[in-house]
């Protein structure tokens, strides 16, 4: 079986459709992961032992089990309790939740890196908890962790093919469908690989820039 350029040209539009969905899922998943991670990180710092413990175990559980199975679970089991999600939404929730447990660790490190003196100064200025978080701690904690967050979002991008298992027509699924229609696997799979490689390499450049831009905060 040799490489066939005509075939490549023919399937390209379909694959590009898939790329769009892949990127959309990554962006939505990243936003959700950024929010979920912050929620988990804050909950784990909660003074309420029960909250911090149970959120901690929940996050450990999510992080220790495969995203693929979690996706099946969200897509096929949740409807039994009346939660019926469209495939892309289910996929984004799966991605966001799963990667939220990773970004939570990034947030934790970022928050821990804000010196204790800042907390104390906030207290001495009589700021309440919410103001301390929103005006003092998070603005200092978040910029240095942007590169680490971006790193996870790139990793998430590479896991979007899993969404094909819950019928999201992303890049991998389109490629498989093309391959099944024509019984040719080499071109679609190689193209998928090339797409991923190109986008990853671009994002590495972006990452370097982010590291340069947000890597450190002057004190």
């Amino acid at each position: 079986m040799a490489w066939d350029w005509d075939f490549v040209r023919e399937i390209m539009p379909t694959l590009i459709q898939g790329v769009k969905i892949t990127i959309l899922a990554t962006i939505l998943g990243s936003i959700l992961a950024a929010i979920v991670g912050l929620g988990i990180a804050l909950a784990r710092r909660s003074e309420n032992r029960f909250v911090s413990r149970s959120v901690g175990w929940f996050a450990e559980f999510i992080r220790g089990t495969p995203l693929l199975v979690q996706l099946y679970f969200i897509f096929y089991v949740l409807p039994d309790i009346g939660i019926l999600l469209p495939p892309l939404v289910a996929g984004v929730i799966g991605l966001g939740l799963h990667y939220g447990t990773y970004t939570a660790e990034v947030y934790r490190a970022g928050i821990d890196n804000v010196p204790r003196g800042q907390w104390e100064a906030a207290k001495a200025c009589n700021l309440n908890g919410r103001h301390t978080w929103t005006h003092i701690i998070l603005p200092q904690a978040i910029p240095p962790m942007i590169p680490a967050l971006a790193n996870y979002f790139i990793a998430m991008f590479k896991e979007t093919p899993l969404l094909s298992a819950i019928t999201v027509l992303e890049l991998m699924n389109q490629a498989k469908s093309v391959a099944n229609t024509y019984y040719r696997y080499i071109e679609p799979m190689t193209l998928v690989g090339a797409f991923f490689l190109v986008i990853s390499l671009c994002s590495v450049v972006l990452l370097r820039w982010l590291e340069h831009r947000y890597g450190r905060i002057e004190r």
Partner: protein
Amino acid sequence: MPAPIIKVDAISKSFGAFKVLDGLSMQVMPGEKLALIGPSGSGKTTILRILMTLEKIDGGHIQVDGEQLYHMERNGQLLPADERHLAKMRQKIGMVFQLFNLFPHKCVMDNVTLAPMLTKGTPRAAAEKRAMELLDMVGLADKAKSMPAQLSGGQKQRVAIARALALSPKIMLFDEVTSALDPELVEEVLNVMRKLAAETDMTMLLVTHEMGFAHDFADRVLFFDRGRIVEEGKPDEIFRHPKQERTQGFLKKIIAAGHRV
């Protein structure tokens, strides 16, 4: 005689097994300028941090401006203070730290206006006007738009003083505010504090190793050792004629190390 503005009554505080404060009591009059001196580890910082509610106490009582600090009276009973009570009490107290603790992501002006705007709801214009007065007072009116990272240590500390003053506390706590500064920058901060002492009737508690400054600045000096007040009195008494052996030993060592008294 007016009532004391701070009344510390037999408080104790331990870190793990280590007892830092051991049944400490003291009183501070309104407008009084108090210097806390003593060897390293004797608990000077700890008592300031307790007054600022940065540490909890294990036992005893503290009254600030006629109200319990760590307790609230409800139906004649003393209950542990809740966050609201603490927030109310903190309005009366400001603190300046050894390491400035400026907010590095905010410019000088925002450092000073942040707390009044958030905690008292002061409108921005009013907060900024007041901030400019304060910055002017500490001699930094021209740095309002600078970021903390662009300032020298002495300038940072003066901003920190302005920031604490912006909330118009009745009591100001200063913890070794010059000890992290290069020697040539110490004087500019001390000058601000002298001015402050002269111009306001704020109550001020000062922890310092600058014995000379403590002497000029304070109405009264407390000598701490191992979590207790070993000796207290007017600066002249303490520095020229200390009665306790511990105090004498401490001052001798300080002088040997080249500090001016």
